[in-house]
């Protein structure tokens, strides 16, 4: 590798230059084509990508002049990838978008889809699905599906302890019942915890903790999305966060750092996770016995809901064609997508048509979606909110003073909100 054959320098340089030219000078040969190419981006997941490809093949069959070029990016880096693409003027035509709709819409990156979505089409979508894609009254995306959470319980542990597993929304545990059960199921040998009563998949995130705040009738940001002080540090929010903190500190039913695969390996008895977690458990841990129970409830029931919408870039050269893809994915093939992806339906027609969504366990998620759904703040400052909230929750779990944490966080949020999301 290092020893170089004895050639004269001139020839040797020529070789190097030649190699560089070969490397640089072979541009991808453009194949003459009459077809239009739509670029479609999604968050990476081997199973979802396969499901999406099946839909896209169907679209290309019905639209023979269109080629859809699908690319997927790791979930954690998806928004960053979108951001760089928009910033350098090279965005995809059609793409997955979530609660950050406001972030991208406020910068003018997203096409308003209001005129494309017929009233009849819109009326078929459940209320929960039309919150995240809307910003300042304009619709910037159409939901593919919805996602919400429940509590997953380890059947074996529950049966051994003789604890009844609730199966309907009305039977949801109250905070006190939940703490009692979680404490009972937590097992320790000396200082070592063998089983944690409680665990959360989206550990310490706003997604997971927002329900607790809302169950206590708290808030995080003012309804006009302009202020956090007086909301994020309101008495109800502080009280909810203190209760949540007590799960880590006083009751010690949940680990400060997440236990990887702790639930299916029997180290966590009750696990708060999204509805799609079922597909994961069934595929990866087929012998593991679990049950789904509704989220615990405080003064009211509350569970975070959200999901992926399909949006179109303002810069696309093919607006109508892009819409046809959006419509195909979200309306025509909605039932197939829901079936293959494991997400929850977002269309009333499908919810009515398929009885399984009214039965256990789907029924729990669907009922929660329609009766308890709360949403993360749809503000251009969502990323800042996400980071700030995560930091607060982590510090609270370590036992720091909740009031002062929330006061400081609210002050920081105010600055960010006043900058218009930056």
């Amino acid at each position, binding site marked *: 590798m290092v020893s170089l054959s004895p050639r004269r320098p001139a020839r040797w340089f020529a070789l190097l230059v030649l190699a560089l030219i070969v490397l640089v000078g072979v541009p991808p040969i453009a194949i003459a084509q009459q077809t239009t190419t739509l670029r479609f981006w999604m968050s990476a997941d081997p199973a979802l990508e396969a499901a999406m490809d099946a839909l896209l093949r169907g679209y290309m069959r019905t639209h023979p002049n269109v080629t859809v070029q699908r690319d997927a990016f790791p979930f954690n880096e998806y928004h960053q990838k979108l951001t760089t693409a928009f910033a350098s003027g090279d965005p995809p035509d059609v793409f997955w978008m979530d609660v950050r709709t406001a*972030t991208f819409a406020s910068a*003018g990156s997203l096409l308003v889809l209001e005129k494309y979505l017929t009233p009849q089409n819109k009326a078929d979508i459940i209320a929960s699905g039309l919150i995240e894609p809307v910003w300042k009254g304009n619709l910037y995306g159409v939901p593919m599906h919805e996602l919400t959470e429940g509590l997953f319980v380890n059947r074996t542990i529950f049966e051994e302890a003789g604890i009844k597993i609730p199966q309907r929304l009305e039977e949801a545990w109250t905070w006190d019942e939940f703490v009692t059960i979680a404490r009972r199921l937590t097992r320790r040998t000396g200082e070592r915890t063998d089983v944690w009563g409680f665990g959360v998949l989206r550990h310490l995130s706003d997604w997971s903790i927002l329900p607790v705040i809302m169950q206590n009738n708290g808030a995080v940001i003012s309804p006009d999305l302009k202020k956090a002080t007086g909301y994020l540090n309101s008495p109800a929010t502080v009280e909810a966060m203190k209760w949540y903190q007590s799960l880590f500190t006083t009751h010690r039913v949940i680990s*400060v*750092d997440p236990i990887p695969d702790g639930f299916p390996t029997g180290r966590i008895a009750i696990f708060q996770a999204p509805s799609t977690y079922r597909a994961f458990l069934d595929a990866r841990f087929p012998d593991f016995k679990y049950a789904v129970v509704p989220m615990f409830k405080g003064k009211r029931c509350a569970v975070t809901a959200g999901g992926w919408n399909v949006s179109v870039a303002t810069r696309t050269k093919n607006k109508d064609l892009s819409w046809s893809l959006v419509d195909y994915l979200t309306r025509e093939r909605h039932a197939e997508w829901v079936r293959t992806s494991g997400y929850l339906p977002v269309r009333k027609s499908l919810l009515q048509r398929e009885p399984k969504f009214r039965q256990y366990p789907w029924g729990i998620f669907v009922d929660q979606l329609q009766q308890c759904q709360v949403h993360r703040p749809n503000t251009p400052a969502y*990323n800042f909110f996400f*980071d700030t909230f995560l930091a607060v929750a982590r*510090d609270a779990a370590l036992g720091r003073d909740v009031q002062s944490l929330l006061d400081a966080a609210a002050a920081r949020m105010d600055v960010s909100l006043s900058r218009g*999301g930056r």
Partner: protein
Amino acid sequence: MAQNRVISPRSSGLARQRYLTAAVFLLPATVGIILFSLLPILQALRISFFDYALLNPEQIFLGADNYRRAFADPVFRIALNNTILYSVLLVVGQTLLALLLALLLKQEIRGRAFFRSAFFMPVVTSLVVISTVWKLMYNSQGFINGVLGTLGLGAQPFLASSTQALPSLVLMSVWKEVGFYMLIFLAGLQAVPGELYESAAIDGANRWTSFWRITLPLLRRATVFVMVVGTISAFKVFTPVYLMTDGGPADSTMVIVFYIFRVAFRYFEMGYASAMSFILMGIVIVLALLQFRLLRTTVEY
């Protein structure tokens, strides 16, 4: 070697030939650095004087406001302190350990190649993989606490503690980087002529004195490299924080580049992020110059 070029007896001709050779030798690297480093840096420098929201094409000239803002930003100050602490701990730790390993492995001992390979392996392992594996090992119910438990020691919170998180990252980084610097020291040690030790031994010097008087001075160039490169890369620490701690708990692992990344890609303030980068650059350049000066050898830099 059939070289047609005749060395000119006149020194001006020699110099001209030398400049020409230097230009040819430097051309590819210079073109690469100008196109793919310098031009983007100049672009970033320009951006640092603007209010440049990543998603918004509209740019507003701010003058030095972004720079002033950085010095008033409490998070930037915390990040700066954490970065300095991280860098000092890491550079000192890895330099000393690398020197120790190099001295141990310089001796003719059995299994030298094995040990050298073992210590070098993390250098050629992806930082993403290492961060992922170490995060799992640092878990409250992870491998390291398993070992501590077996040894009868108490479990530690590691990344879940605001006092242990940063030292835990340093420990992992020493593990990851030390092999490379060990190799640099080893290569430097190979250059120390054996006779020097022999003559020193004849003069009655013990090993300690010969280490101080012969080995260390000859390792200067290697030390300059290890310290300067170590400092530069320590100041740019990002991946472990991004994958393992997210800057917490309680901002205890919030380091500059991670903060810059957040401001740029999550809060879209490219102008402010660029300004902080140039402040970082200034600090690192001053540090590098100081190290060059402190470790100056007779050869000019």
